Protein backbone atom coordinates (compact mmCIF):
# COMPACT_ATOMS: atom_id res chain seq x y z
CA UNK A 1 0.00 0.00 0.00
CA UNK A 2 1.13 3.53 -0.76
CA UNK A 3 0.16 6.47 1.45
CA UNK A 4 -0.09 10.23 1.11
CA UNK A 5 2.04 11.97 3.72
CA UNK A 6 2.14 15.54 2.43
CA UNK A 7 0.14 17.84 0.15
CA UNK A 8 0.92 21.28 -1.23
CA UNK A 9 -0.60 23.78 -3.61
CA UNK A 10 0.33 26.95 -5.48
CA UNK A 11 -3.15 28.45 -5.81
CA UNK A 12 -4.36 28.56 -9.44
CA UNK A 13 -4.64 31.91 -11.18
CA UNK A 14 -2.70 34.26 -13.40
CA UNK A 15 0.89 34.34 -12.13
CA UNK A 16 2.20 36.33 -15.07
CA UNK A 17 5.11 37.83 -13.16
CA UNK A 18 6.32 34.50 -11.72
CA UNK A 19 8.62 31.95 -13.36
CA UNK A 20 7.68 28.29 -13.61
CA UNK A 21 10.44 27.45 -11.08
CA UNK A 22 8.81 29.77 -8.59
CA UNK A 23 5.30 28.44 -9.25
CA UNK A 24 6.45 24.82 -8.91
CA UNK A 25 8.74 25.49 -5.97
CA UNK A 26 5.98 26.93 -3.80
CA UNK A 27 3.89 23.73 -4.08
CA UNK A 28 6.90 21.48 -3.40
CA UNK A 29 7.94 23.43 -0.29
CA UNK A 30 4.36 23.31 0.98
CA UNK A 31 4.14 19.54 0.45
CA UNK A 32 7.50 18.89 2.15
CA UNK A 33 6.53 21.06 5.11
CA UNK A 34 3.13 19.35 5.35
CA UNK A 35 4.81 15.93 5.25
CA UNK A 36 7.45 16.93 7.76
CA UNK A 37 10.27 15.58 5.58
CA UNK A 38 13.30 17.37 4.21
CA UNK A 39 14.30 17.64 0.55
CA UNK A 40 17.14 15.17 1.21
CA UNK A 41 14.68 12.47 2.29
CA UNK A 42 12.94 12.42 -1.12
CA UNK A 43 14.17 9.37 -3.05
CA UNK A 44 12.56 10.01 -6.44
CA UNK A 45 10.52 12.71 -8.15
CA UNK A 46 7.91 12.65 -10.91
CA UNK A 47 7.30 16.07 -12.40
CA UNK A 48 4.40 16.71 -14.75
CA UNK A 49 4.37 19.62 -17.16
CA UNK A 50 2.37 19.55 -20.39
CA UNK A 51 2.99 22.80 -22.20
CA UNK A 52 6.40 24.16 -21.16
CA UNK A 53 8.22 22.75 -24.17
CA UNK A 54 5.76 24.43 -26.52
CA UNK A 55 4.99 27.69 -24.71
CA UNK A 56 8.21 28.43 -22.85
CA UNK A 57 10.72 26.48 -24.94
CA UNK A 58 11.82 24.69 -21.76
CA UNK A 59 12.40 20.96 -21.40
CA UNK A 60 13.35 18.78 -18.39
CA UNK A 61 11.64 21.33 -16.20
CA UNK A 62 11.60 18.91 -13.25
CA UNK A 63 15.34 19.07 -12.70
CA UNK A 64 15.32 22.83 -13.19
CA UNK A 65 12.75 23.33 -10.45
CA UNK A 66 14.00 20.67 -8.03
CA UNK A 67 17.70 21.60 -8.23
CA UNK A 68 16.79 24.95 -6.72
CA UNK A 69 15.09 23.22 -3.80
CA UNK A 70 17.99 20.97 -2.84
CA UNK A 71 16.67 17.82 -4.53
CA UNK A 72 19.68 16.34 -6.30
CA UNK A 73 21.27 12.99 -7.01
CA UNK A 74 17.96 11.19 -7.33
CA UNK A 75 15.78 9.83 -10.15
CA UNK A 76 13.75 12.66 -11.69
CA UNK A 77 11.20 11.80 -14.36
CA UNK A 78 9.52 14.46 -16.49
CA UNK A 79 5.97 13.55 -17.53
CA UNK A 80 3.83 14.83 -20.41
CA UNK A 81 0.42 13.22 -20.92
CA UNK A 82 -1.89 16.15 -21.82
CA UNK A 83 -4.48 16.84 -19.10
CA UNK A 84 -3.55 13.59 -17.36
CA UNK A 85 0.11 14.61 -16.99
CA UNK A 86 -0.28 15.16 -13.23
CA UNK A 87 -2.27 12.00 -12.59
CA UNK A 88 0.19 10.04 -14.73
CA UNK A 89 3.02 11.31 -12.49
CA UNK A 90 0.98 10.03 -9.53
CA UNK A 91 0.62 6.65 -11.25
CA UNK A 92 4.37 6.44 -11.82
CA UNK A 93 5.26 7.40 -8.26
CA UNK A 94 2.69 4.99 -6.85
CA UNK A 95 4.16 2.18 -8.95
CA UNK A 96 7.75 3.07 -8.04
CA UNK A 97 6.93 2.70 -4.35
CA UNK A 98 4.89 -0.47 -4.92
CA UNK A 99 7.85 -1.93 -6.82
CA UNK A 100 10.14 -1.26 -3.88
CA UNK A 101 12.24 1.22 -5.83
CA UNK A 102 11.81 3.91 -3.20
CA UNK A 103 10.05 4.64 0.08
CA UNK A 104 9.47 8.39 -0.37
CA UNK A 105 8.44 9.93 -3.69
CA UNK A 106 7.56 13.44 -4.72
CA UNK A 107 4.83 14.15 -7.29
CA UNK A 108 4.66 17.64 -8.79
CA UNK A 109 2.28 18.98 -11.42
CA UNK A 110 3.15 22.46 -12.62
CA UNK A 111 1.98 24.66 -15.48
CA UNK A 112 2.60 28.20 -16.66
CA UNK A 113 0.22 28.82 -19.55
CA UNK A 114 -1.03 32.41 -19.17
CA UNK A 115 1.36 33.61 -21.86
CA UNK A 116 0.61 35.50 -25.10
CA UNK A 117 1.65 32.57 -27.33
CA UNK A 118 -1.19 30.30 -26.12
CA UNK A 119 -4.03 29.89 -28.62
CA UNK A 120 -7.01 27.55 -28.31
CA UNK A 121 -6.01 24.09 -27.14
CA UNK A 122 -6.24 21.49 -29.92
CA UNK A 123 -4.97 17.98 -30.70
CA UNK A 124 -1.71 19.14 -32.22
CA UNK A 125 -1.33 21.44 -35.17
CA UNK A 126 -0.48 18.79 -37.76
CA UNK A 127 -3.42 16.50 -36.90
CA UNK A 128 -5.91 16.36 -39.77
CA UNK A 129 -8.85 16.97 -37.41
CA UNK A 130 -7.14 20.14 -36.16
CA UNK A 131 -6.69 21.36 -39.73
CA UNK A 132 -10.39 20.70 -40.28
CA UNK A 133 -11.30 22.99 -37.38
CA UNK A 134 -11.45 20.64 -34.37
CA UNK A 135 -10.63 22.83 -31.37
CA UNK A 136 -11.14 21.24 -27.94
CA UNK A 137 -14.38 23.11 -27.07
CA UNK A 138 -15.86 21.84 -30.36
CA UNK A 139 -15.13 18.22 -29.51
CA UNK A 140 -17.16 18.59 -26.29
CA UNK A 141 -19.88 20.67 -27.96
CA UNK A 142 -20.37 17.76 -30.38
CA UNK A 143 -20.81 15.44 -27.39
CA UNK A 144 -23.23 17.90 -25.80
CA UNK A 145 -25.41 18.19 -28.89
CA UNK A 146 -25.56 14.41 -29.29
CA UNK A 147 -26.35 13.94 -25.57
CA UNK A 148 -29.25 16.40 -25.89
CA UNK A 149 -30.48 14.53 -28.97
CA UNK A 150 -30.29 11.01 -27.52
CA UNK A 151 -31.25 11.60 -23.90
CA UNK A 152 -33.24 14.83 -23.85
CA UNK A 153 -30.56 16.59 -21.81
CA UNK A 154 -31.22 20.33 -21.69
CA UNK A 155 -28.87 23.25 -21.88
CA UNK A 156 -30.17 24.36 -18.47
CA UNK A 157 -29.03 21.01 -16.99
CA UNK A 158 -25.57 21.58 -18.43
CA UNK A 159 -25.52 25.13 -17.06
CA UNK A 160 -26.45 23.68 -13.64
CA UNK A 161 -23.00 22.06 -13.58
CA UNK A 162 -21.43 25.53 -13.81
CA UNK A 163 -23.81 27.09 -11.27
CA UNK A 164 -22.81 24.36 -8.78
CA UNK A 165 -19.13 24.74 -9.60
CA UNK A 166 -19.23 28.49 -8.89
CA UNK A 167 -21.19 27.94 -5.66
CA UNK A 168 -18.56 25.42 -4.49
CA UNK A 169 -15.68 27.71 -5.45
CA UNK A 170 -17.06 30.47 -3.22
CA UNK A 171 -16.03 28.20 -0.34
CA UNK A 172 -12.55 27.48 -1.73
CA UNK A 173 -10.02 30.26 -1.09
CA UNK A 174 -7.65 28.58 -3.58
CA UNK A 175 -10.10 28.73 -6.51
CA UNK A 176 -9.62 31.11 -9.43
CA UNK A 177 -13.26 32.12 -10.04
CA UNK A 178 -14.95 33.12 -6.81
CA UNK A 179 -18.26 34.67 -7.86
CA UNK A 180 -21.73 33.16 -8.05
CA UNK A 181 -23.31 32.62 -11.46
CA UNK A 182 -26.90 31.56 -12.09
CA UNK A 183 -28.06 29.03 -14.67
CA UNK A 184 -29.62 31.91 -16.61
CA UNK A 185 -26.35 33.89 -16.58
CA UNK A 186 -24.38 30.85 -17.77
CA UNK A 187 -26.78 30.28 -20.67
CA UNK A 188 -26.86 33.96 -21.65
CA UNK A 189 -23.09 34.21 -22.08
CA UNK A 190 -21.37 34.33 -25.47
CA UNK A 191 -21.24 31.00 -27.31
CA UNK A 192 -17.84 29.38 -27.82
CA UNK A 193 -19.08 26.32 -29.70
CA UNK A 194 -22.85 25.83 -29.71
CA UNK A 195 -24.38 25.06 -27.26
CA UNK A 196 -21.40 25.68 -24.93
CA UNK A 197 -21.09 29.24 -23.66
CA UNK A 198 -17.93 30.80 -22.27
CA UNK A 199 -18.81 29.92 -18.67
CA UNK A 200 -19.18 26.27 -19.66
CA UNK A 201 -15.49 26.12 -20.69
CA UNK A 202 -12.78 25.97 -18.01
CA UNK A 203 -10.32 28.85 -17.74
CA UNK A 204 -6.60 28.48 -18.36
CA UNK A 205 -4.42 29.18 -15.33
CA UNK A 206 -0.94 29.04 -13.87
CA UNK A 207 -0.42 26.89 -10.81
CA UNK A 208 1.08 23.83 -9.21
CA UNK A 209 0.25 20.99 -6.84
CA UNK A 210 2.51 18.51 -5.07
CA UNK A 211 2.31 15.31 -3.06
CA UNK A 212 4.71 13.34 -0.88
CA UNK A 213 3.96 9.61 -1.14
CA UNK A 214 5.40 7.01 1.23
CA UNK A 215 5.57 3.24 1.61
CA UNK A 216 3.88 1.30 4.44
CA UNK A 217 7.04 1.33 6.56
CA UNK A 218 7.40 5.09 6.45
CA UNK A 219 3.65 5.64 6.77
CA UNK A 220 3.75 3.87 10.12
CA UNK A 221 6.73 5.90 11.28
CA UNK A 222 5.23 9.23 10.23
CA UNK A 223 1.59 8.46 10.97
CA UNK A 224 0.32 8.93 7.41
CA UNK A 225 -3.39 8.12 7.35
CA UNK A 226 -4.46 8.41 3.70
CA UNK A 227 -4.16 5.30 1.56
CA UNK A 228 -4.05 5.09 -2.22
CA UNK A 229 -6.28 2.12 -3.01
CA UNK A 230 -5.88 2.22 -6.78
CA UNK A 231 -4.58 4.32 -9.64
CA UNK A 232 -5.44 3.28 -13.20
CA UNK A 233 -3.98 4.78 -16.38
CA UNK A 234 -5.42 3.82 -19.75
CA UNK A 235 -5.10 5.06 -23.32
CA UNK A 236 -8.06 5.29 -25.71
CA UNK A 237 -9.57 2.53 -27.86
CA UNK A 238 -9.96 4.80 -30.90
CA UNK A 239 -12.72 2.54 -32.22
CA UNK A 240 -14.79 3.69 -35.15
CA UNK A 241 -17.63 4.56 -35.11
CA UNK A 242 -16.88 6.43 -31.86
CA UNK A 243 -19.89 6.78 -29.55
CA UNK A 244 -19.65 10.37 -28.33
CA UNK A 245 -22.07 9.92 -25.43
CA UNK A 246 -21.13 6.51 -24.01
CA UNK A 247 -17.45 6.95 -23.25
CA UNK A 248 -16.03 3.43 -23.14
CA UNK A 249 -12.49 4.51 -22.22
CA UNK A 250 -13.86 6.51 -19.29
CA UNK A 251 -16.11 3.63 -18.16
CA UNK A 252 -13.42 0.97 -18.37
CA UNK A 253 -10.81 3.04 -16.55
CA UNK A 254 -13.29 3.60 -13.73
CA UNK A 255 -14.36 -0.06 -13.66
CA UNK A 256 -10.74 -1.18 -13.27
CA UNK A 257 -10.10 1.35 -10.49
CA UNK A 258 -13.21 0.20 -8.60
CA UNK A 259 -12.20 -3.45 -9.05
CA UNK A 260 -8.67 -2.85 -7.81
CA UNK A 261 -9.94 -0.90 -4.79
CA UNK A 262 -12.58 -3.53 -4.06
CA UNK A 263 -15.37 -0.99 -3.88
CA UNK A 264 -18.00 0.58 -6.12
CA UNK A 265 -19.42 4.07 -6.63
CA UNK A 266 -21.92 3.61 -3.77
CA UNK A 267 -19.09 3.63 -1.23
CA UNK A 268 -17.34 6.79 -2.50
CA UNK A 269 -17.90 9.96 -0.45
CA UNK A 270 -16.35 12.68 -2.66
CA UNK A 271 -15.40 12.91 -6.33
CA UNK A 272 -13.17 15.27 -8.30
CA UNK A 273 -13.61 14.76 -12.05
CA UNK A 274 -12.30 16.41 -15.19
CA UNK A 275 -15.02 19.02 -15.79
CA UNK A 276 -13.15 20.88 -18.52
CA UNK A 277 -16.60 21.64 -19.94
CA UNK A 278 -20.09 21.46 -18.42
CA UNK A 279 -20.99 18.42 -20.54
CA UNK A 280 -17.76 16.70 -19.48
CA UNK A 281 -18.89 16.45 -15.84
CA UNK A 282 -22.21 14.98 -17.02
CA UNK A 283 -20.44 12.34 -19.13
CA UNK A 284 -17.95 11.50 -16.36
CA UNK A 285 -20.70 11.11 -13.73
CA UNK A 286 -22.31 8.55 -16.02
CA UNK A 287 -19.03 6.75 -16.70
CA UNK A 288 -18.22 6.64 -12.97
CA UNK A 289 -21.57 4.96 -12.32
CA UNK A 290 -23.16 7.76 -10.29
CA UNK A 291 -26.29 7.45 -12.43
CA UNK A 292 -27.58 5.42 -15.37
CA UNK A 293 -26.23 6.22 -18.85
CA UNK A 294 -27.99 9.28 -20.23
CA UNK A 295 -29.14 10.49 -16.79
CA UNK A 296 -26.17 12.79 -16.12
CA UNK A 297 -28.00 15.98 -17.04
CA UNK A 298 -30.86 15.25 -14.69
CA UNK A 299 -28.36 14.25 -11.98
CA UNK A 300 -26.56 17.60 -12.32
CA UNK A 301 -29.82 19.55 -11.96
CA UNK A 302 -31.04 17.41 -9.03
CA UNK A 303 -28.54 18.75 -6.51
CA UNK A 304 -27.33 15.25 -5.66
CA UNK A 305 -23.79 16.11 -6.82
CA UNK A 306 -23.61 19.36 -4.82
CA UNK A 307 -22.08 19.71 -1.37
CA UNK A 308 -24.61 18.17 1.03
CA UNK A 309 -26.03 15.93 -1.72
CA UNK A 310 -25.79 12.17 -2.17
CA UNK A 311 -22.34 12.26 -3.82
CA UNK A 312 -20.60 15.67 -3.98
CA UNK A 313 -18.68 16.21 -7.24
CA UNK A 314 -16.02 18.89 -7.72
CA UNK A 315 -16.46 20.56 -4.35
CA UNK A 316 -13.18 22.40 -5.07
CA UNK A 317 -14.91 24.21 -7.94
CA UNK A 318 -13.36 21.76 -10.39
CA UNK A 319 -11.60 22.83 -13.54
CA UNK A 320 -14.49 25.18 -14.33
CA UNK A 321 -13.90 27.43 -11.31
CA UNK A 322 -10.62 26.40 -9.67
CA UNK A 323 -8.95 26.87 -13.06
CA UNK A 324 -7.05 24.40 -15.25
CA UNK A 325 -3.26 24.66 -15.33
CA UNK A 326 -3.09 21.49 -17.41
CA UNK A 327 -0.43 19.38 -15.66
CA UNK A 328 -1.26 20.66 -12.17
CA UNK A 329 -4.94 19.65 -12.31
CA UNK A 330 -4.53 15.92 -11.78
CA UNK A 331 -2.38 16.47 -8.70
CA UNK A 332 -4.63 19.22 -7.33
CA UNK A 333 -7.58 16.80 -7.47
CA UNK A 334 -5.67 14.48 -5.11
CA UNK A 335 -4.75 17.42 -2.84
CA UNK A 336 -8.45 18.34 -2.63
CA UNK A 337 -9.58 14.82 -1.79
CA UNK A 338 -6.82 14.36 0.79
CA UNK A 339 -7.87 17.66 2.41
CA UNK A 340 -11.42 16.34 2.82
CA UNK A 341 -10.27 12.93 4.09
CA UNK A 342 -8.25 14.79 6.73
CA UNK A 343 -11.32 16.83 7.64
CA UNK A 344 -9.49 20.09 6.87
CA UNK A 345 -11.62 21.48 4.00
CA UNK A 346 -13.27 24.23 6.06
CA UNK A 347 -16.62 25.53 4.80
CA UNK A 348 -16.69 23.09 1.90
CA UNK A 349 -15.85 20.00 3.98
CA UNK A 350 -17.77 16.89 2.93
CA UNK A 351 -18.87 15.70 6.37
CA UNK A 352 -17.28 12.45 7.44
CA UNK A 353 -15.60 11.80 4.07
CA UNK A 354 -13.60 8.55 4.25
CA UNK A 355 -13.22 7.65 0.56
CA UNK A 356 -12.64 9.76 -2.54
CA UNK A 357 -12.17 9.31 -6.27
CA UNK A 358 -10.29 11.46 -8.78
CA UNK A 359 -10.85 11.15 -12.54
CA UNK A 360 -8.80 12.86 -15.27
CA UNK A 361 -8.81 12.75 -19.04
CA UNK A 362 -6.59 14.27 -21.71
CA UNK A 363 -5.92 14.51 -25.42
CA UNK A 364 -8.23 13.86 -28.34
CA UNK A 365 -7.81 11.25 -31.08
CA UNK A 366 -10.39 9.66 -33.38
CA UNK A 367 -13.31 10.81 -31.24
CA UNK A 368 -11.77 9.26 -28.11
CA UNK A 369 -9.52 10.50 -25.33
CA UNK A 370 -5.83 9.67 -25.54
CA UNK A 371 -5.45 9.17 -21.80
CA UNK A 372 -7.72 8.56 -18.83
CA UNK A 373 -6.91 8.07 -15.15
CA UNK A 374 -8.96 7.16 -12.09
CA UNK A 375 -7.56 7.05 -8.55
CA UNK A 376 -9.32 5.98 -5.36
CA UNK A 377 -8.18 7.12 -1.91
CA UNK A 378 -9.37 6.28 1.60
CA UNK A 379 -8.51 6.94 5.22
Amino acid at each position, binding site marked *: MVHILGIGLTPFGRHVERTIDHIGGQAVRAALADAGVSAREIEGAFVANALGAMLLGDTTIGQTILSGLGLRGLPVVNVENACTSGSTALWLAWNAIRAGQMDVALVLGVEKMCVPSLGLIDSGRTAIDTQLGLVTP*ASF*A*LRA*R*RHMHEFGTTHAQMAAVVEKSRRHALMNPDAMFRRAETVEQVMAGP*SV*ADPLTRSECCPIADGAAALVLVSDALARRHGADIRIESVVLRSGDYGNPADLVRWKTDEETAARAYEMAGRGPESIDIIECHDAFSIAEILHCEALGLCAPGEGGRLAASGETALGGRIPVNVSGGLLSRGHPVAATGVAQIVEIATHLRGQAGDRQVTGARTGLAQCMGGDLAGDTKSCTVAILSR
Partner: protein
Amino acid sequence: MTGAEALPPFAEDIFVSKGKGVQLLGSRCPQCGRAFFPRTGICPDDGTATEALRLDGEASLYSFTVVRTKPPFALPAPYPVGYVDLPKHDLRVFMLLDPDRIDALEIGMPMRLASGEMGVDLKGRRCIRPYFTPADTKG
Protein backbone atom coordinates in the same frame (compact mmCIF):
# COMPACT_ATOMS: atom_id res chain seq x y z
CA MET B 1 -14.99 30.47 -56.34
CA THR B 2 -13.07 31.63 -59.38
CA GLY B 3 -9.63 30.17 -59.56
CA ALA B 4 -10.35 27.76 -56.70
CA GLU B 5 -9.54 24.75 -58.88
CA ALA B 6 -5.96 25.95 -59.08
CA LEU B 7 -5.48 26.07 -55.31
CA PRO B 8 -3.82 23.17 -53.49
CA PRO B 9 -5.72 20.85 -51.13
CA PHE B 10 -5.17 21.66 -47.42
CA ALA B 11 -3.39 18.31 -47.03
CA GLU B 12 -2.47 15.36 -49.26
CA ASP B 13 -4.35 12.05 -49.41
CA ILE B 14 -7.52 13.26 -47.69
CA PHE B 15 -9.95 13.83 -50.57
CA VAL B 16 -10.26 13.97 -54.34
CA SER B 17 -12.35 16.43 -56.26
CA LYS B 18 -13.27 15.74 -59.88
CA GLY B 19 -15.82 18.17 -61.29
CA LYS B 20 -18.78 18.01 -58.93
CA GLY B 21 -17.81 14.67 -57.43
CA VAL B 22 -15.88 14.88 -54.18
CA GLN B 23 -14.81 11.80 -52.25
CA LEU B 24 -12.87 11.16 -49.07
CA LEU B 25 -9.87 8.86 -49.39
CA GLY B 26 -9.90 6.02 -46.92
CA SER B 27 -8.37 2.58 -46.77
CA ARG B 28 -9.49 -0.91 -45.86
CA CYS B 29 -7.74 -3.87 -44.31
CA PRO B 30 -8.18 -6.91 -46.62
CA GLN B 31 -7.66 -9.20 -43.62
CA CYS B 32 -10.21 -7.89 -41.10
CA GLY B 33 -12.28 -5.64 -43.37
CA ARG B 34 -11.98 -2.60 -41.13
CA ALA B 35 -12.16 0.75 -42.95
CA PHE B 36 -10.07 3.77 -42.01
CA PHE B 37 -10.22 7.51 -42.46
CA PRO B 38 -7.82 9.23 -42.80
CA ARG B 39 -6.07 6.58 -44.85
CA THR B 40 -3.65 4.33 -42.99
CA GLY B 41 -1.02 2.22 -44.74
CA ILE B 42 -0.99 -0.61 -42.20
CA CYS B 43 -3.97 -1.94 -40.26
CA PRO B 44 -3.20 -1.21 -36.58
CA ASP B 45 -5.15 -4.32 -35.52
CA ASP B 46 -3.31 -6.98 -37.55
CA GLY B 47 -0.43 -5.27 -39.37
CA THR B 48 -1.75 -6.05 -42.84
CA ALA B 49 -1.08 -3.56 -45.65
CA THR B 50 -4.37 -1.82 -46.42
CA GLU B 51 -6.04 -1.20 -49.77
CA ALA B 52 -7.16 2.21 -51.02
CA LEU B 53 -10.86 2.90 -50.53
CA ARG B 54 -13.00 5.80 -51.71
CA LEU B 55 -15.64 6.61 -49.14
CA ASP B 56 -18.76 6.64 -51.27
CA GLY B 57 -22.35 5.88 -50.32
CA GLU B 58 -24.86 7.55 -48.02
CA ALA B 59 -23.91 10.02 -45.33
CA SER B 60 -25.91 11.34 -42.37
CA LEU B 61 -25.17 13.89 -39.67
CA TYR B 62 -24.37 12.30 -36.26
CA SER B 63 -23.67 15.55 -34.38
CA PHE B 64 -22.66 19.13 -35.14
CA THR B 65 -21.59 22.40 -33.56
CA VAL B 66 -20.89 25.92 -34.72
CA VAL B 67 -17.53 27.26 -33.53
CA ARG B 68 -17.81 30.96 -32.69
CA THR B 69 -14.33 31.71 -31.33
CA LYS B 70 -11.54 33.11 -33.45
CA PRO B 71 -11.14 30.47 -36.18
CA PRO B 72 -7.84 28.62 -36.70
CA PHE B 73 -6.35 28.44 -40.22
CA ALA B 74 -8.42 31.49 -41.31
CA LEU B 75 -11.57 29.36 -41.49
CA PRO B 76 -14.86 31.28 -41.87
CA ALA B 77 -16.28 32.88 -38.71
CA PRO B 78 -18.37 31.22 -37.48
CA TYR B 79 -17.76 27.75 -38.92
CA PRO B 80 -19.68 24.51 -38.38
CA VAL B 81 -18.10 21.08 -37.85
CA GLY B 82 -19.60 17.68 -37.21
CA TYR B 83 -19.34 13.93 -37.20
CA VAL B 84 -20.90 12.29 -40.24
CA ASP B 85 -21.89 8.62 -40.43
CA LEU B 86 -20.92 6.62 -43.51
CA PRO B 87 -22.90 3.40 -42.89
CA LYS B 88 -21.62 1.60 -46.00
CA HIS B 89 -18.12 1.67 -44.54
CA ASP B 90 -19.12 1.54 -40.84
CA LEU B 91 -17.25 4.81 -40.29
CA ARG B 92 -18.01 8.03 -38.41
CA VAL B 93 -15.80 10.86 -39.65
CA PHE B 94 -15.07 14.32 -38.30
CA MET B 95 -15.41 17.00 -40.99
CA LEU B 96 -16.08 20.64 -41.66
CA LEU B 97 -19.67 21.44 -42.57
CA ASP B 98 -21.04 24.03 -44.99
CA PRO B 99 -20.71 27.49 -43.41
CA ASP B 100 -23.54 28.74 -45.66
CA ARG B 101 -26.03 26.14 -44.32
CA ILE B 102 -25.62 26.55 -40.55
CA ASP B 103 -29.33 27.16 -39.97
CA ALA B 104 -30.31 24.00 -41.86
CA LEU B 105 -28.24 21.56 -39.77
CA GLU B 106 -30.12 18.79 -37.92
CA ILE B 107 -28.90 15.52 -36.47
CA GLY B 108 -29.81 12.61 -38.73
CA MET B 109 -30.14 14.62 -41.95
CA PRO B 110 -28.66 13.22 -45.19
CA MET B 111 -25.42 14.90 -46.24
CA ARG B 112 -23.15 14.96 -49.27
CA LEU B 113 -19.49 15.88 -49.63
CA ALA B 114 -18.41 19.10 -51.36
CA SER B 115 -15.18 21.06 -51.53
CA GLY B 116 -14.11 24.64 -52.04
CA GLU B 117 -11.70 27.32 -51.00
CA MET B 118 -11.70 27.57 -47.22
CA GLY B 119 -8.98 29.08 -45.06
CA VAL B 120 -5.25 28.50 -45.36
CA ASP B 121 -3.00 25.44 -44.99
CA LEU B 122 -0.12 24.80 -42.55
CA LYS B 123 2.09 27.02 -44.72
CA GLY B 124 -0.45 29.86 -44.73
CA ARG B 125 -1.46 29.37 -48.39
CA ARG B 126 -5.08 29.66 -49.57
CA CYS B 127 -6.34 26.13 -50.08
CA ILE B 128 -9.24 23.78 -50.80
CA ARG B 129 -10.95 21.92 -47.95
CA PRO B 130 -13.65 19.25 -48.16
CA TYR B 131 -16.89 19.77 -46.21
CA PHE B 132 -20.24 18.08 -45.85
CA THR B 133 -23.33 20.01 -46.84
CA PRO B 134 -26.99 18.98 -46.49
CA ALA B 135 -27.92 16.67 -49.38
CA ASP B 136 -30.47 19.20 -50.62
CA THR B 137 -27.94 22.01 -51.03
CA LYS B 138 -28.09 23.32 -54.60
CA GLY B 139 -24.99 23.59 -56.77
